[in-house]
């Protein structure tokens, strides 16, 4: 955005020099307090002096004080303009202190061996974690699984599109169907993994297993072989998230002007051709957004896997998140897990950047 303010406000601020000085003073004073408290705590941590701190909370409080002073000083120094900054500044501070700082801290942890339960504490171990990751077949396996899981999105997209078309047709009780189709999204994945994964797919008494036997599948087993287990997880995840894509596509369908489809009809296009040549191209931007958001959510897939298969059989259903979760739970090694997560983040950023570039080119109207 290169243009100026959308909302022009002309203000005649009369800010005295003393007020400006006071504004600057509180920022620097509170910053000094943060540094002093942090230094005192660090000194105690290293065993030099004892101030009687039990936790790092004083530093946190000092930091919050500094943040409040920073916001206040904006108004003090810059008057009306400062009040505008106040719209964004608290959120920016909140996000920065909760992501950037932990991420930098995570980078430090990633290159160290740190077992939380051992008294040794953090030990810097250079590139050992990277080497361990390089030769960790389970991590690569989890990454490969993520590719499979993401490919399943294409099928989810097809089903979601079909359902959106159905809901967009002239039907009665549209509201009932819309609510019914939306409900799976409301359910917590943990409850779903019990409701469906543990009870409905139960081999002896579960209704789905009975149904499968009735269909002629002798010994239904949904988590036995690696391929079927992965497929089951995909289906469960699809079940919860198809409504999400469906709603987005439905909104897109409803935004298409009726004249266009009618014009196609007048021109003699059957429903099939008018779908492929009118509706589908018009839906491309919405579809791309829906699929991209879905990929982002898919990257976080873990709850169902953790609760249902714990990655088994043989790591066939592992996602990166569930793998790191178990890695931490079993060995409580924070360092290695953090490195794996960091590598995953880098991969995600690269993949999403490429996808967004491709999508951008793909959806731009061809002239």
């Amino acid at each position: 955005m290169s243009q100026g303010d959308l909302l022009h406000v002309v203000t005649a601020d009369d800010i005295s020099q003393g007020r400006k000085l006071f504004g600057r003073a509180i920022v620097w004073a509170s910053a000094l307090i943060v540094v002093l408290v942090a230094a005192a705590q660090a000194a105690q941590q290293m065993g030099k002096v004892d101030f009687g701190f039990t936790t790092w909370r004083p530093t946190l409080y000092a930091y919050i004080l500094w943040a409040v002073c920073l916001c206040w000083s904006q108004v003090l120094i810059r008057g009306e303009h400062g009040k505008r900054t106040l719209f964004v500044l608290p959120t920016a501070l909140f996000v920065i202190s909760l992501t950037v700082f932990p991420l930098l801290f995570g980078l430090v942890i990633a290159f160290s061996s740190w077992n939380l339960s051992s008294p040794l504490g953090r030990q810097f171990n250079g590139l050992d974690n990277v080497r361990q990751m390089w030769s960790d077949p389970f991590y690569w396996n989890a990454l490969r699984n993520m590719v499979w899981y993401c490919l399943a999105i294409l099928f989810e997209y097809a089903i979601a599109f079909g359902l959106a078309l159905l809901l967009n047709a002239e039907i009665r009780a549209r509201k009932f169907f819309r609510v019914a189709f939306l409900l799976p999204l409301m359910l917590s994945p943990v409850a779903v993994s019990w409701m469906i994964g543990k009870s409905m797919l139960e081999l002896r008494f579960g209704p789905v297993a009975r149904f499968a036997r009735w269909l002629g599948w002798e010994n239904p087993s949904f988590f036995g072989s690696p391929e079927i287990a992965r497929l089951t997880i995909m289906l469960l995840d699809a079940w919860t998230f198809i409504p999400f894509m469906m709603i987005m596509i439905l909104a897109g369908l409803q935004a298409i002007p009726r004249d266009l489809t009618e014009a196609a009809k007048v021109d003699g296009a059957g429903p099939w051709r008018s779908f492929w040549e009118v509706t589908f191209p018009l839906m491309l931007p919405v579809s791309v957004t829906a699929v991209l958001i879905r990929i982002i959510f898919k990257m976080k897939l873990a709850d169902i896997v953790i609760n249902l298969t714990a990655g088994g059989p043989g790591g066939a259903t592992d996602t990166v998140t569930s793998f790191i979760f178990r890695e931490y739970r079993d060995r409580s090694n924070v360092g290695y897990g953090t490195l794996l997560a960091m590598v995953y983040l880098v991969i995600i950023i690269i993949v999403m950047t490429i996808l967004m570039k491709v999508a951008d080119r793909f959806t731009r109207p061809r002239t």
Partner: protein
Amino acid sequence: MTEAIFHDSEADRAYRAKWYLSRLVIYGLLILWAIVCLFPIYWTITTSFKMAPNVMQGALIPWVDYTPAWLGWRSLGLSPDTIGAESTVRDEFLKRFFNSAITSVVSSSLAVILGSLAAYGLSRFSYRFGYMRNSDISFFFLSQLILPPVVLALPFLVLYRELALLDTRIGLILLYTLTVLPIVIWIMRDQFASIPTELEEAALVDGMSIWGAFFGVILPIALPGMMAAFILSLVLTWNEYFFAALLTSTHANTLPVMVASQTGSQGINWWAMAALSFAAILPLVIIGIVLERYLIKGMTAGAVK
């Protein structure tokens, strides 16, 4: 002369048949998918009223296949005969339930407040923080959506341990706010962009301050959008499991953690699990049915231009 003068031609009748067929297919598919969506919920409700033999037989319809019993709800301490009595399980359940409710409501409200302010600022004024301009700041906020929880989880685990925030609700609330904030900003940015700036200009001419104009004029108009953002955040935070499982142990456990911890130990004790699962999903099922409009509004924000 009773013969109809006007009658459908052969071609029209064929068309009618085709029309009925297409209706049949459409409704058939709709009902099929509705069953796929609703059956697990139905199954969970009915199972919570079953007893062991009913489960083994695979009974489906209450009063026909089996007689409902309060077994599952009794084990939660929520059946009619145990509701008055002391029950440790119920206390445990209620504690988890309120933990879930408090964390999700507080973090959603916080996210809506922070996110609306930021989205409003970004949609109305141009900022410069160092080299970052408006579009960069927006991108910075929205890019948090890509950040997988697992990247933050372990650093936060260590940080919270040092700050004594582990196993507290405040710790969870902070993280949850962070995770839903990008979605709120996404929705609210869309919402504010659709409100003409003339409204505030009029308010400013009338002598209101910029914050006064925001609270007095813009906020009431943007309320449906905020509601949508709030409901969507509520759904995401209520269902969150990963952070809760890592960062809480005894005091601040949320409902999903309780459900997950019961699944392993209960074995074939289905009725209790079904009652617990159903109690865990019930609030959101109600929200989904009653406030469906807002949910859809929230999910479609920014998707359709």
